[in-house]
């Protein structure tokens, strides 16, 4: 105990609080709660901390920003546009940048934090996906996470539009065009959202209230649920010696996590401030105020919207002789906008929502899971994850096609043709390659568990044979390589199977059939018996473990 805060004083203060709020129960439950450690667990923390930075910096900005589209003559500090007609939103953003000390810094902190917030969400989501952290009992928290990701995009886009500069105004123009393309109700929706024709005078005040109130409130509520469920379920952990499905191994909140996680908040905040200090972002004075007539080359949205913009760029207006926009009975179907602008993002969200239940249906596995999967041990899931990322990146790349074309001296049309092809073939290739890599890594794990690691020491036997000495793994190292179970396969039911049952069995086989079984004690025993007196056998059995072995456990291994 420190000298200033004596036991007695602590007790008095704690007693005062406890008498009024019953804090002792809370402290007893949570202060020594154990959290497991892994570097990838900090991705979720980055999401939370950048959100806090967004709340702090955003509040600062609202003290000066005026969400009005009323036109005014700019007479501020930035000489090149003095005398131009601009909206009050744009004028107040310029004043905030030029006349408030630290105002530009705060704007840049807010913008960088927003970009980092969405990036961290994506990375966190990818981590959850490839490690299987969405499995029972955490499926509902996965859904909360998907909702948070969508809200983060909404927060980003509504904020992006507020300065009313040329770039963001054209972003809104694109949104209005996409809304107009919706059959039957599109035109009405556009008029209701914009309060009349584009751009009208209502859209920025409306986006503002969504950006500073509705969306942050929803984000806060869902973050509360997200973290509440995290505490309820307790954090998952990677498998390892001493770590099981029924325990949590790690450090207590007080003092280690309080210091580490609390400190990490300051690190994230500090890095964002340093980025904002040194790297200019969104210099709206260069873009100028919004005007429906001018535009600049290289118009890109913020990175998280790139995929929608890229999809819009990839979709052709004609598929050979077939138009993708056509009329029936005098009404227009704009599939060239609807498919990339609404259907593709909609299907992506649907896939994210459905995945945990699809996988559970295919594995028939209804047990609780508290141990993470090593991504390599789930080759199909990891492959699907990487395929999804590649799909996303192809579309994002398409939204930068003009910049890529000018920087690398490629024809923009050729670049678009290549990306159109990659849109379809990129994900399957990524899936196949990733799955092969995972199986290769699993094979290596198996090899290592059976024979130990190479020492580089070559020994010549009395018979003149050479072999390399392998050093066996200790039990702790080995456990990491042999702990995983095989997946459950849903077999085709006996007798007459329905179409759905057949589909389920086929898909289940596609998901779980290819794997390399973990080494069992019997196999290790056999391999060691083999090694005695004959070193070469070490190389021999690599190929014996065929990919695609059905069933599970020790039946799959052969050839010793």
């Amino acid at each position, binding site marked *: 105990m420190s000298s200033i805060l004596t036991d007695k004083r602590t007790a008095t203060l704690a007693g005062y609080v406890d008498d009024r709020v019953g804090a002792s129960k809370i402290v007893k439950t949570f202060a020594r709660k*154990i959290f497991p450690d892994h570097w990838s667990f900090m991705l979720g923390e980055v999401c939370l901390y950048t959100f806090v930075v967004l709340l702090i910096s955003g509040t600062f900005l609202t003290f000066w920003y005026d969400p009005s589209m009323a*036109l005014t003559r700019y007479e501020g500090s930035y*000489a090149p546009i003095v005398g131009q007609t601009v909206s009050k939103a744009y004028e107040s953003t310029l004043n905030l940048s*030029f006349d408030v*000390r*630290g105002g*530009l*810094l705060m704007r*840049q902190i807010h913008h960088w934090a927003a970009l980092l917030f969405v990036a961290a969400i994506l990375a966190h989501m990818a981590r959850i996906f490839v490690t299987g952290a969405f499995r029972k009992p955490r499926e509902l928290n996965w859904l909360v996470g998907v909702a948070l990701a969508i809200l983060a995009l909404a927060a980003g886009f509504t904020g992006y539009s507020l300065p009313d500069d040329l770039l963001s105004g054209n972003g809104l*123009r694109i949104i209005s*065009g996409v809304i*107009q*393309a919706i059959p039957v109700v599109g*035109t009405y929706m*556009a*008029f*209701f959202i914009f309060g*009349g024709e*584009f*751009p*009208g005078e209502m859209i920025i005040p409306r986006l503002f209230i969504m950006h500073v109130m509705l969306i942050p409130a929803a984000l806060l509520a869902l973050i509360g649920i997200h973290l509440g469920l995290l505490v309820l379920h307790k954090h998952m952990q990677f498998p390892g*010696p*001493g*770590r*099981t499905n*029924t*325990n*949590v*191994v790690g450090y*207590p909140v007080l003092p*280690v996590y309080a210091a580490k996680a609390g*400190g*990490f908040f*300051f690190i994230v905040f*500090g890095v964002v*401030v*340093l980025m*904002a*200090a*040194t790297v200019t972002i969104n210099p709206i004075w260069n873009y100028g105020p919004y*005007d*429906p*007539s*001018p*535009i600049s080359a290289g118009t890109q949205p913020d990175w998280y919207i790139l995929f929608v913009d890229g999809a*819009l760029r990839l979709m052709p*207006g*004609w598929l050979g002789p077939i138009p993708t*926009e056509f*009329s029936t009975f005098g009404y*227009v179907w704009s599939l*060239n*906008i609807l498919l990339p602008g609404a259907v593709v993002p909609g299907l992506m969200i649907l896939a994210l929502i459905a995945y945990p239940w699809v996988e559970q249906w295919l594995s028939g596995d209804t047990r609780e899971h508290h141990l993470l999967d090593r991504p390599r041990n789930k080759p199909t899931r990891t492959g699907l994850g990487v395929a999804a990322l590649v799909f996303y990146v192809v579309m994002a790349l398409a939204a930068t096609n003009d910049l890529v074309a000018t920087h690398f001296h490629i024809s923009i049309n050729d670049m*678009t043709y290549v990306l159109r092809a990659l849109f379809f073939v990129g994900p399957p290739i990524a899936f196949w390659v990733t799955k092969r890599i995972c199986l290769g890594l699993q094979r290596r794990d198996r090899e290592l568990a059976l024979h130990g690691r190479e020492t580089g020491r070559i020994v010549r036997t009395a018979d003149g044979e050479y072999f390399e000495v392998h050093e066996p793994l200790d039990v702790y190292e080995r*456990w990491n390589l042999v*702990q995983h179970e*095989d997946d459950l396969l849903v077999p085709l039911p006996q007798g007459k199977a329905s179409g759905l049952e057949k589909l389920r069995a086929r898909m289940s086989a596609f998901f779980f059939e290819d794997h390399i079984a973990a080494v069992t*004690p019997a196999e290790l025993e056999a391999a060691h018996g083999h090694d005695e007196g004959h070193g070469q056998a070490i190389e021999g059995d690599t190929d014996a473990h065929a990919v695609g072995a059905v069933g599970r*456990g*020790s039946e799959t291994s052969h050839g010793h």
Partner: protein
Amino acid sequence: MKDSPTTGHNDAGPSHGGTGTDLAAPEGTALENRFANPGLPAHRFRTTDTDPKAARNAERQVSTIFLLSFIGTVVFLVGYFALPIEDDKSLGRLQLSTLVLGLGLGFAIFCIGIGLVHWAKTLMPDHEQVELRHDIRGTDEDRRDATNIILDGVEESGVMRRTVIRNSLIAALGILPIPAVVLFRDLGPLPGTVLRESLWEEGVRLTRDPDGTPIRAADVTFGSVFHVIPEGLAESSHPIEEKAKAAVLLIRIQPEDVKPIESGMINQADWSYGGIYAYSKICTHVGCPVALYEQQTHHLLCPCHQSTFDLTQHCKVIFGPAKRPLPQLPITVDSEGYLVASAGFPVPPGPSYWERGVSE
């Protein structure tokens, strides 16, 4: 099952920790076929645990880092008062101010974080501890009790017996959301026909964007491009909305470069004046301005999604997501030699929408 209190670490090695039974391969595969979880490995001590000198060093490092944070805040404050931006309105001064404030504040915040983490990693206990999980589900007894409470509640409310009340409540609740939807109707006016209309009509002069000065046909040299708005745009009640429909590009090319009108197209033969063509500047895809003109090929390009329109083929789409050609504005000259529209746009300018009609 109650959450057991945290067990402290014990260095006994393999016997500690889980037994691995929960990881038994399911269904049929006997436990003995798998390895058992060896339990937590023995704890390794850090040099700061064993060497008091190392611990003192770490202590000094942590406090030095916190001191750096202190200095960072001082830098921020000095920068705030020493670099006023009111006197010097240059962009350079603004950037310097932003840099100094940001570096000061950034290091002030960053160093607190680094210091805390370094403290936790070097000096706070690093013994891993084990906590047991408990079932997420309630016990069977809890479940039974909960179900009974709900059933009792439903029974006491009488909602199942008093069907008239129940059904009328369902009807009332069912219709209640409609006012919420109806209220949103007043968010905006109905579209009507405004998307078809623009300020262009017979006799409206073509003027330069943004100053609104009229353009003489004689001023338009071969290969030149004018950004055009209708005369009187600034005086209209909603100049920005009107501009979003009425913006026009004016280009003069050699008439022989333009391909003849194909059958099936609107007869646009007399819509140009001496090789001067006027086309809507608003992309027929989602409405970005088509502002890039390639003089050599006479292609117009929208920088948002790369829809490419060929001026020599009456602005037909030759690449990208747009499907319809840019609408052409019929033009002629008035008695004073100024360019004027000879009619409005023959089709609605701008992006497609459901009621737009024929998508030519």
